[in-house]
């Protein structure tokens, strides 16, 4: 029976170990974030719920951009047009909402989401049909979408419906639970969980993991890729909406979201080689980056050195990570 108990214990371990192994990176990030928040409280005792709310609103656009990037990266691609798609969808939203009723705004939001899907689908279709590397197609399309944004409005402006703005402002139930955090979680969960459970979700990982094997296993590689890009477009549109929601306007000039989203994705444990990772990691990574910036403000660090620090931290975290991985592969 001792043997039985041993077996039982091994069973339990087998159950936990793989999960921990697969999510080790994200767990590490969460821990790091925890430490950061504690440190923040130490250097700025007055940092409280309103700070948390600011944090939640602040991360929203980049977090959604990172999610968008993560999806396409997991499918083995990369999308350098996310920033432009955000700008485009954001100006469309702000322009159409200006002087319109709250109800109409709902239609606008739905319309913008559809637009996002279309933009993403166009990217995907081009990648699939032309066989041109993803990075080139999306790089080129980043100019196209930015141009479209400028067509919609030459200068920043427009308006956001009241309910849209309130969606991300303030808190929910407790003042420690910012609305925008809820919004983020809901958006990601509602769309991604069903997808990832579906066969399509598996296929996304599959084509990212090994294209030839996926093809030989009878997966419609092209269609899957298209879907992944469409999904990315959808999330990019949501990110664009979050811009409009938090600023109340649309800006035709793309923000610094594209490359930062790539950074966040990698920081979040998604392999740029594709096939691995999730959406939670990148989101945590974005929050970490934001908190670090806040801390540097609290410490009144010279902005130029803040840039240096940001770079070093980016690399530092990854180095520590790769060290940990090396150790594990040795063991």
């Amino acid at each position, binding site marked *: 029976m001792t043997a039985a108990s041993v077996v039982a214990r091994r069973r339990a371990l087998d159950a936990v170990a793989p999960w921990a192994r697969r999510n080790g990176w994200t767990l590490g990030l969460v821990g790091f974030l925890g430490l950061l928040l504690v440190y923040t409280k130490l250097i*700025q005792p*007055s*940092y409280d719920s*309103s*700070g948390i709310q*600011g*944090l939640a*609103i*602040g991360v929203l*656009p980049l977090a959604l951009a990172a999610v968008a990037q993560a999806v396409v990266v997991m499918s083995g691609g990369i999308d350098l047009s996310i920033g432009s798609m955000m700008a485009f969808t954001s100006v469309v939203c702000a322009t159409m909402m200006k002087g319109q009723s709250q109800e109409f705004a709902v239609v606008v939001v739905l319309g913008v989401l559809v637009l996002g899907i279309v933009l993403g689908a166009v990217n995907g279709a081009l990648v699939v049909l032309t066989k041109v590397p993803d990075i080139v197609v999306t790089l080129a399309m980043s100019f196209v979408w930015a141009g479209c944004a*400028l067509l919609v*409005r*030459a*200068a*920043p*402006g427009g308006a956001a419906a009241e309910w849209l*703005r309130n969606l991300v*402002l303030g808190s929910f139930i407790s003042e420690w639970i910012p609305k925008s955090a809820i919004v983020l979680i809901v958006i990601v969960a509602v769309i991604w969980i069903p997808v990832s459970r579906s066969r399509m979700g598996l296929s996304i990982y599959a084509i990212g993991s090994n294209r030839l094997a996926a093809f030989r296993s009878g997966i419609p590689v092209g269609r899957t890729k298209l879907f992944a890009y469409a999904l990315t477009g959808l999330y990019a549109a949501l990110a664009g909406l979050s*811009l409009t929601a*938090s*600023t*109340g*306007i649309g*800006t*035709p*000039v*793309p*923000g*610094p979201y594209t490359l930062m989203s790539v950074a966040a994705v990698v920081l979040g444990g998604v392999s740029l080689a594709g096939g691995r990772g999730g959406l939670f990691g990148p989101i945590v990574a974005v929050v970490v980056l*934001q908190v670090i*910036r*806040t801390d540097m*403000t*609290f410490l*009144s660090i*010279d*902005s*130029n*050195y*803040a*840039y240096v620090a940001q770079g070093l931290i980016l690399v530092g975290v990854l180095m520590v990570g790769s060290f940990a991985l090396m150790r594990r592969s040795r063991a």
Partner: protein
Amino acid sequence: SSSTGTTGPSGPKTFTIGYSNGGSVGNGFREEQVCTAKAQVKMYPEITNLTVIHRNTDAAGQLSDIRDLIAKNVNAIVFNPNDPDALNPALEEAAAKGIVTVSVDAYVTDPHTWNLYNNQIKYAELGAKWLFDQMGGTGTVWYTRGLAGHPADSDRDIGFQTVLKQYPNIKVVPSNSGVFTGWDPATTTNLTNDFISSGQYDKIQGIWASGMGKQIVDAIKAANKPFVPIVDADIGGFVSQLLDPTNFPGLKGAAVTNTASVGGAGVTMALKLLKGETITQSAGAGRPNTVLLDPVLLDNTTDAGKAALKAWQSVPGLDQLWPLSLSIQGWTTYDPNTVPASCKGA
């Protein structure tokens, strides 16, 4: 809330100020702006700390930067807005906490915030008027603009178009909406080279520039083309070109002030507000709590003009891409020559 400031050991109230700059890191105008702010802070012992956040980001990013400053409990926030409306949510939160907010170099629509900025519409009008007059009211103008979608650029366009209407015989190339340099030297140089090599340059009689005049003039010189009248901002490099007939023979041009000292002025305004002093707002501004800085135009067509332009080069050896006018009557109290030094301080 700590808006009334904390009472320092010395007795009198002391204040901390936050400064937010949402873009163009390394850009001469923006950096000089921050430096003037630092220089001005040195003038006020009661200001104990100036926290500067200067990074390349968009309106949403600046929004969170300002929120960070609010969370830091500064007494006042001076900022160069990325957008007139976008920052309002954070500005309201600041007002709720009793934090004084001052917008420099461009206005914001938030009612609690004071604006202090160069009148960009006027900037464009002055330049355009001078240019069109130089051309005798007829001819073709190459309209080179800044960054598409940037508020200042949009304001300048408004000014340019109003004057254009008054000169029916002035034609604008490439189109009435002009061409964008993105305020980027390399882009401008390529743009100008292509413009010249395609022969379009030979068909124009004037150039309206938005801050990249130096690069345009250099490109024309490199192509050994005759100069046409050109108007641009008071960037050091451009002004020295105007004052250098040996290297730039026949270059007729005018420089319009677009002072970066708004940074320092913003600090002064913030302090006045913190101390509850009254500020006289500009009448023509068209919005409350606003102080407009009206630009000045100088050209090199007259000796008087040349002399005045020379006078602008008050600080020797200043970086060529930095604006010259380093002080604003009544708003900055530092000695312009101390500005470069104050840049070095973290």
